[in-house]
């Protein structure tokens, strides 16, 4: 599903949560065509990057989530939990840690030893296997995680993923 359609769907679902507190918590699981996205703090600052990345044949979106530039594409499992954090009595910090925990368990199921580091996300050694970027509006979450399953990792060569210059990406297939 295109990133734009998924983004509009998330906005609609979040708005519905504001209007109806009894709406269910949801998890959207999907794949995107090749798309680069960046987070809130880089809005309006990446026009040169956008032109370059679009020339590679990818879409480009600035979003209101946390985090910096990352890639979404075929072979990557993207998850967008649309939750009310109050239902789980979770702080933002604990919610992100819970996502990391779920991804680590998922990697374990494939015999991969994954962990967290001082940088948010899920790592296998020094390589990042799953990126996380969240938006919270009135306790309602949107955006989420992106787990590399058999993603073509060469797409990441054109950016500094999540702003970390000395780190590389990996995938379940790679490991």
């Amino acid at each position, binding site marked *: 599903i295109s990133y734009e359609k998924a983004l509009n769907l998330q906005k609609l679902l979040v708005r519905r949560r504001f209007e109806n507190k009894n709406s269910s918590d949801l998890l959207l699981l999907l794949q995107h065509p090749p798309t680069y996205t960046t987070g*809130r*703090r880089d809005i309006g600052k990446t026009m040169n990057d956008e032109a370059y990345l679009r020339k590679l044949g990818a879409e480009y979106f600035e979003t209101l989530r*946390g985090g910096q530039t990352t890639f979404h594409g075929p072979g990557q499992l993207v998850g967008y939990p649309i939750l009310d954090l109050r239902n789980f009595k979770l*702080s933002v*910090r604990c919610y992100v840690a819970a996502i990391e925990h779920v991804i680590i368990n998922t990697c374990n199921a494939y015999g991969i030893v994954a962990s967290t580091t001082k940088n948010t996300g899920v790592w296998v050694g020094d390589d990042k296997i799953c990126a996380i970027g969240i*938006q*919270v*509006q009135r306790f309602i979450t949107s955006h989420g995680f992106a787990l590399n399953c058999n993603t073509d990792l060469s797409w990441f060569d054109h950016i500094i993923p999540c702003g970390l210059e000395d780190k590389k990406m990996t995938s379940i297939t790679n490991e």
Partner: protein
Amino acid sequence: MFTPTTFGFLSSKVVPLYVPTFRRAILRNTFRNNPASRFGALLSFKEYSSKKFTKDHEWIDVENDLGTIGITDYAQKALGDVVYVETPEIGTVVEQSGPCGAVESVKAASDIYAPVSGEIVDVNKNLVETPGLINKSPETDGWLCKIKLSNPSELNSLMEEHEYHSHCEKSH
């Protein structure tokens, strides 16, 4: 003959003596004649400058019709280490409970909402270089922005400090 110079000279000498004496006389009479008015005076001073809280963990400290807005200590603990703060633009007109900036921590951008309606007249530029101020001093030096209130009666819908603390305890 009183010339402007003479008057200016005298006023600079007389007024400093006269005003404190005048103030002491007022206070003395007030307390002597009506001790309860001391408490009234204190109360009215508190109404003039007081901190209120929202259920979404923002605070606003108002003096006359100028409010300083930030997020509470409870909120900063829940967020974790703040790495980026998005302040609203000066001149923006916001509505009560409308978006008023955002705070990013652990790759999560959390929207902040205006406790009251008004115009943003100042933002805390220190947060650009030192976003961690929000963690260190969320309710003092880590203020987010200042707002000129357009409807001070909206403050009545906000919580006093003790009500806010009860609200936080119920959220656990």
